[in-house]
């Protein structure tokens, strides 16, 4: 194994700087294993947490009979599904049908690989010492980490899409069509809101991005909140979580794309959905809330980082459940409208505002004036957009066949 391949594939992790030996491989394997186990445990707890929390929000108790506080509820679900009869529908496309659940699960895990879950970023780049080797608390830190996130989240649509298509019946197919349109649309908003972070951090490496946000210097403030809101909304849509869960809208499409799935294959979808929720929350924490950054209050440096990361993660998991408990579901066209007519222009405009701030700083102009001027331009453009949309709607309403009385 040549030392030169290392940096190109595994990025900048100090673990590989001194060459790759057996210890490095073992540590890497350990990190992969730990990340996977951690993620699985987290999924189990997340499902339980979601069910308990949503029950609390509805004056109920929620699962409380499987183990203490019902904490083994997910385990029971998993074991049951594992031992349930499996079926591949006659009209399905067998190969694709079998492939789809894995297509949805693998990207969910891969994204997590670039998330720094701990480490002391206060002044340093977050390296910790594992068995005498310096390394990051993340599986891998490729130089294009953020692009990997985008790539994986755009690949995740395949699982949903192919599952629906391969089932060979109508409801899943409809869900597939919805899924592809929805996920591709929100991919754009997701990417654009990310650019704001990149603009400020100047790096695609997640480790770098976290290191840039040491202590309280979070991107949330640095990018003036809006990109995070856009990202959160777009992420919710990417995850097919309520109120954007049109893909599996039970009331409309029975089970959505997984209508025909049973047993362990269905469990994989279930797993992927929640794993995606967790990884996406982790990504938000990394990008906007400074990852493991926070005041150090323990003697072991990296432990407080882990704790901070966990606390911030919980915040977003809570938010996702809260959204589910509160909001009704969007309709397909409203979802598209929100994505295309609000989120994308907003994130694009915000990017320009941030850029004008930076450029004004570089050129020595008055920053406030530049931002205000840019905001004015944005407002004018927004006005134009609104006018255009209204005109379009009016024409649609006049269209005798388009509208309904």
């Amino acid at each position: 194994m040549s030392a030169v391949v290392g940096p190109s594939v595994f990025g900048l992790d100090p673990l590989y700087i001194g060459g790759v030996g057996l210890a490095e491989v073992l540590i890497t394997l350990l990190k992969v294993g730990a990340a996977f186990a951690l993620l699985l445990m987290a999924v189990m707890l997340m499902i339980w947490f979601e069910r308990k929390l949503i029950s609390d929000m509805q004056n109920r108790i929620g699962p409380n009979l499987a183990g203490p506080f019902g904490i083994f509820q997910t385990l029971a679900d998993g074991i049951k599904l594992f031992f349930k009869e499996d079926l591949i529908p006659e009209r399905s496309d067998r190969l694709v049908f079998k492939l789809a659940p894995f297509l949805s699960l693998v990207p969910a895990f891969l994204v997590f690989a670039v998330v720094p879950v701990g480490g002391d970023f206060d002044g340093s780049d977050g390296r910790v010492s594992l068995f005498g080797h310096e390394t990051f608390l993340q599986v891998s830190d490729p130089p294009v980490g953020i692009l990997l996130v985008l790539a994986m989240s755009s690949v995740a649509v395949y699982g949903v899409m192919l599952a629906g298509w391969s089932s060979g019946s109508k409801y899943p197919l409809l869900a597939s069509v919805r899924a592809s349109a929805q996920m591709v649309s929100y991919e754009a908003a997701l990417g654009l809101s990310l650019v704001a972070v990149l603009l400020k951090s100047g790096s695609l490496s997640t480790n770098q991005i976290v290191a840039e946000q040491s202590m309280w210097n979070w991107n949330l403030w640095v990018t003036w909140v809006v990109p995070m809101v856009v990202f959160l909304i777009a992420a919710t849509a990417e995850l097919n979580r309520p109120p954007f869960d049109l893909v599996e809208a039970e009331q409309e499409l029975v089970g959505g794309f997984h209508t025909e799935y049973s047993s362990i294959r269905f469990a994989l979808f279930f797993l992927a959905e929640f794993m995606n929720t967790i990884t996406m929350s982790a990504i938000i924490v990394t990008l906007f809330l400074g990852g493991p950054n926070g005041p150090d209050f323990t003697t072991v440096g990296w432990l407080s980082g882990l704790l901070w990361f966990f606390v911030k993660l919980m915040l977003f998991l809570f938010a996702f459940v809260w959204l589910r408990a509160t909001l009704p579901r969007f309709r397909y066209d409203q979802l598209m409208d929100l994505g295309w007519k609000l989120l994308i222009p907003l994130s694009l405009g915000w990017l320009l505002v941030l850029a004008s701030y930076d450029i004004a700083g570089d050129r020595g102009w008055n920053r406030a004036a530049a931002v205000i001027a840019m905001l004015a331009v944005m407002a004018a453009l927004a006005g134009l957009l609104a006018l255009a949309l209204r005109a379009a709607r009016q024409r649609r309403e006049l269209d005798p066949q388009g509208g309904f009385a």
Partner: protein
Amino acid sequence: MSASEVVAAAASDEAVRRRDHSAVLRIGEDDGERLEAEAGAGDTRMIMNMGPQHPSTHGVLRLMLEMEGETVMRSKPVIGYLHTGMEKTAENLTYLQGPTNVTRMDYASPLFSELAFSLATEALLGLEPPPRATWIRMLMCELNRISSHLLFQATNGMDIGAVSMMIYGWREREEALRLLETITGLRMNHNYIRPGGVAADLPDGWRDQVLGLMDALPPRLDEFDTLLTGQPIYRERLQGVGVINSAECLALGVTGPILRSTGYAWDLRRDMPYLAYDHVDFDVVVGTYGDCFDRYAIRLNEIRESIGILAQILDQMPPGDYRVQDKKVTPPPRARIDESMEALIHHFKIFTEGFKVPAGEVYAAVESPRGELGCYMVSDGSSVPYRMHIRGPSFVNLQTLPHLMQGGMVADAVAIISSVDPIMGEVDR
């Protein structure tokens, strides 16, 4: 719009009819798959079966939707999956047993069916129930209207995807049901309103409990308002969806909240009063646009009106008999059985063969939470109805579905079914 103008519109508006033909998918129940197979692969229209076992078809309604992409072009409701033969069963049950049968029709508001049945029987008998019975009936009906509309709030929330709203709706409904249970002994299908009065007097402590419910509900309704009415996503989902106008409603025979949502104020309680509704003061809630949101808002506000009516009923509840004191119709009090041979004989006669009702035919109607619930009854002079027919509002209202759905999306279809609030037991009977 005045009534006469509406009539004129209904009479002249041939557009209503034309749209009829285009909105309703006129194919047989089993033809969907055949047509699908015949259509070329490039034909983008497909026929989709929604139901009879589908989460949002409120039980066993089946809809055949002709769709283009996600847009519903034409549709046809297919019913009968819950056909129970209740009208046939009614011909084999005495007038005394009758309420047990009709109460199972509209299981969300069972007392209204019992009331319509009892009013029809009383009309044939030529009896006037005592005032306390009348007021108890009103009390019960308004409580039932509240629980029925709460059920709507729950299912509507569920269909729109607001999971908490569903649970909140059930929670409030449970409170109302417990009150009904205290009074009648059953949560649903009460068999409480009988020809000649009600089965039992109000229990001890009923007034406190009704007051308790009246206190507890309004803040919860305000919660619904915050959660849904004021929620932009929710409004977007419902406003302008499933629009219908008064003329169309009347032409289709639609009654209840759907008719009122078009701005047409027609409520039997006010316009053709029965029981003692002319002695209470309440507003008929109407909408403006005839869309799903109006229908939701009407039901929510009718709960508030019902609470107002309950207050007046509490004030005006008269003392006295709660069943008509006619030996032929009402069994004697327990105390009389031991004293009087005649009473014992009446008791036995009523519980073995029931009471005889003079020959004739009659139609009686009440305003149920879903519209005009009528009972058409023919008697041949025996103690069993010769023919008993219930005009179910859901059954007639269901005909609006194709018109409301045309041009909408699948998600709209779900919202529309929900806003029509059909109870399939009453549709299929």
